């Protein structure tokens, strides 16, 4: 069958301050009618640039230096305007921003219908409602008049899908359509895209960084790296018999339900420990006990005369225990209270009620502002989700790592600080020559290492990891996870690992707590929770995680 879309030796260059930068190098792939093709790669691989070139929305600074794109046998150059919406349409990441904020969603759909003469003034509204119904929005008659800010992220993406499918195009480009959505919403959205496009016999070009998702929803996968297509193969073949070393590395680094930490870097063993395990000072066997912890936030509204609404309970009376040296996973979707819980334990926030007994004393006794200057401060430390945001842009890596040394450990002498900073940098595998750099001069993985070095500087007993790898590419994530695991064993620390991704949590933690709506719904060993969940919510969560199982693919 002739391909619907054919990208041929496409090269794109961008004008930048540093001159022209080549973003794509002779990229080529095809999408057959009715086929779902995944374009997979890490950040900077050029996967989005190829998509924007296809639909003709390339940034003005970009220009095609070689090759081109053919749609339905004819070059698209010059006729993208007529193809857009009618033949090729697109859905985006961050769906809320992709909808006009001051126009009701129904009218936005009607706009597209009218533009392509598929509806007139009289029937546009009815057709918009019908489309909303097709994307499974409840009460479409009411929602048609809603503004984007009144809808959830998942709903906005459904509206976006309705917009994209309004004129029954033959090719849908989905650019990371579920980034920022919760796993269960992600699954619902992707299932919807699959069902709708399959029913219409449409082709889909799915751009994603998530191999698991690509495996689940695509027929064929194109792997890109630094502007090159390195491999292109049907899904089963790609996962069972990857040819290119980069594909192999990517597959190995993506955590699945059965992968082992050591395998993530392709079987290369994690570097040997640099320090022998240190005996920690003795203390009670039970390191942490959280008792009936509650955190309420006042709700807005009510006005001058209205009754004050009941406060919102972000954390609703949870309790758990942790042993010395244990690693505990705290799992749930956004808004489940896991981050609030961890930041209360880290004493960055005060709780409404409850107790947190750490190493034998209730640390909630001291307000968080005072706790900052107590010696216990050094015993509980935290690694943040966004490594970039957690580094002061005006401080070099060394200064950032030295901050807790000066303030908590009381190191005053410059030479001693430098010595300790060098030691910490070596422990986290940060080359010493990078220590003088500022955050914007470091890569994501390097910034993550700086954040970890800072957190372990005071030799804490408990380290709270708040989604420390969620912003990183999978290959970097793999290395950071191995580093964290090694540090825990070397330094005898305990971890609370906060994450939405059970597959990642399983790699680092023995025990897992699943939270939903401020409550604990299930606890158990990581294997139990992942492979035999008891609670209904956990089951839904586990089944929503996109993943690939080479064994299963091989069997099929």
């Amino acid at each position, binding site marked *: 069958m002739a391909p619907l879309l054919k990208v041929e030796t496409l090269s794109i260059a961008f004008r930048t301050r540093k001159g022209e930068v080549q973003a794509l190098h002779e990229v080529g792939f095809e999408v057959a009618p009715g086929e779902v093709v995944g374009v997979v790669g890490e950040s900077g691989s050029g996967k989005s640039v190829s998509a924007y070139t296809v639909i003709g929305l390339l940034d003005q600074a970009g220009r095609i230096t070689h090759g081109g794109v053919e749609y339905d046998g004819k070059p698209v150059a010059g006729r993208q305007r007529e193809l857009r919406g009618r033949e090729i349409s697109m859905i985006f990441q961050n769906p809320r921003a992709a909808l006009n904020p001051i126009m009701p969603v129904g009218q936005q759909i009607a706009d597209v219908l009218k533009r392509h003469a598929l509806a007139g003034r009289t029937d546009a509204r009815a057709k918009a409602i019908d489309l909303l119904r097709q994307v499974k929005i409840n009460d479409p008659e009411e929602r048609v008049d809603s503004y984007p800010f009144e809808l959830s992220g998942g709903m906005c993406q459904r509206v976006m899908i309705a917009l994209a499918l309004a004129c029954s195009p033959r090719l849908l480009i989905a650019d990371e359509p579920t980034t920022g959505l919760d796993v269960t919403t992600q699954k619902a959205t992707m299932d919807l895209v699959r069902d709708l496009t399959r029913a219409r016999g449409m082709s889909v070009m799915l751009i994603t960084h998530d191999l698991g998702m690509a495996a689940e929803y695509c027929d064929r996968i194109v792997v890109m790296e630094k502007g090159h297509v390195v491999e292109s193969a049907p899904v089963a073949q790609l996962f069972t018999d990857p040819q290119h070393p980069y594909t192999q590395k990517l597959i190995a680094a993506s955590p699945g339900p059965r992968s082992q930490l050591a395998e993530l870097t392709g079987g290369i063993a994690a570097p040997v420990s640099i320090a022998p395990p240190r005996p920690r000072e003795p203390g009670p066997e039970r390191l942490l006990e959280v008792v009936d912890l509650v955190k309420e936030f006042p709700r807005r509204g009510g006005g001058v005369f209205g009754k004050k609404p009941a406060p919102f309970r972000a954390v609703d009376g949870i309790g758990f225990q942790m042993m010395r040296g244990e690693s505990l996973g705290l799992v749930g979707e956004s808004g489940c209270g896991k981050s609030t819980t961890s930041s209360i334990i*880290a004493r960055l926030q005060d709780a409404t009620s409850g107790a947190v007994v750490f190493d034998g004393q209730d640390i909630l006794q001291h307000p968080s502002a005072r706790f*900052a200057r107590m010696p216990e401060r050094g015993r509980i430390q935290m690694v943040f989700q*966004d490594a970039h945001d*957690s580094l002061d842009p005006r401080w070099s890596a060394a200064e950032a790592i030295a901050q807790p040394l000066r303030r908590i450990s009381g190191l005053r002498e410059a030479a001693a600080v430098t010595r300790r900073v060098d030691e910490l940098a070596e422990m986290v595998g940060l080359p010493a020559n990078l220590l003088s750099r500022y955050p914007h001069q470091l890569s994501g993985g390097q910034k993550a290492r700086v954040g970890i070095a800072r957190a372990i500087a005071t030799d804490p007993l408990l380290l709270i990891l708040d989604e420390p790898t969620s912003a990183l590419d999978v290959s970097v994530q793999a290395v950071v996870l191995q580093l964290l695991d090694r540090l825990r064993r070397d330094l005898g620390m305990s971890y609370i690992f906060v994450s939405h991704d059970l597959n990642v949590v399983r790699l680092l933690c023995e025990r897992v707590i699943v939270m939903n709506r401020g409550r604990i719904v299930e606890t158990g060993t990581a294997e139990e929770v992942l492979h035999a969940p008891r609670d209904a919510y956990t089951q839904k969560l586990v089944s929503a995680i996109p993943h690939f199982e080479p064994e299963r693919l091989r069997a099929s």
Partner: protein
Amino acid sequence: MAAIARLRYTVSENPLTVIGFGLFAVFVIMAVFGPAIAPYDPLATRAVNALQPPSMAHPFGTDHLGRDVLSRVIVAARLDLGIALSAVMLSFVVGSALGCLAGFRGGWTDRIVGRLSDTIMAFPLFVLAMGVVATMGNTVQNVIYATAVINLPFYIRVARAEVAVRRNAGYVQAARLSGSSDLRILATQLFPNVLPPMMVQISLNLGWAILNAAGLSFIGLGVRPPAAEWGIMVAEGASYIVSGEWWLALFPGAALMLAVFCFNLMGDGLRDMVDPTRRT
């Protein structure tokens, strides 16, 4: 090194900024050495010499009292820039302190400071300045206070917004974890990051402050004759415009305009350096 490269890049991208800084240097020289480089005594009147058009002896002509306009324009720089600079510094210090506090503490502090700046902003600012000078007394000092008051809300807003955005930034949380007190966080992590946008604000504000002070003296508030000040000189020259003696008002007016222009150019240039994405 990177900073120098960036500076060079910004400069080559935006030659207007260079002009701005050049003009600024000229005005600073005028302000510092004014009386020394002025060819005549700016206050010396000579009735016989009145209303001379520009000539070799008097490049900018003479005014209705026979005073040399060039000398007066040069000498006035000190007074005009002095008023603007003191006023802006005053509102910068008070405004950034209040704004940082409001942004960092939130709650009641924020509400009170916000109410204060809203109330000031509820007035047409020049009118408020008129009212303040009119009632507090017609002196140069009060012009400075009035100009400082009407500039205050801008500093409060910038500082408050910048601090509030960063209050819960990861690196502030990290500093708390590292055992820093609130005051230390405010001083070492928040304030330094607020400074760049504040510098832009200061530069843009200086031009506006000069305009305000000159406007006040144009309607007879603040600086009194015979002192040399651009606003007053324009006011004095105004009545001669309709009879064709343009040089009385034109030269001080042009000096005023150039001064404001130069601060605006510098402000735009600084903004480009601080945040290239917000370039307008």
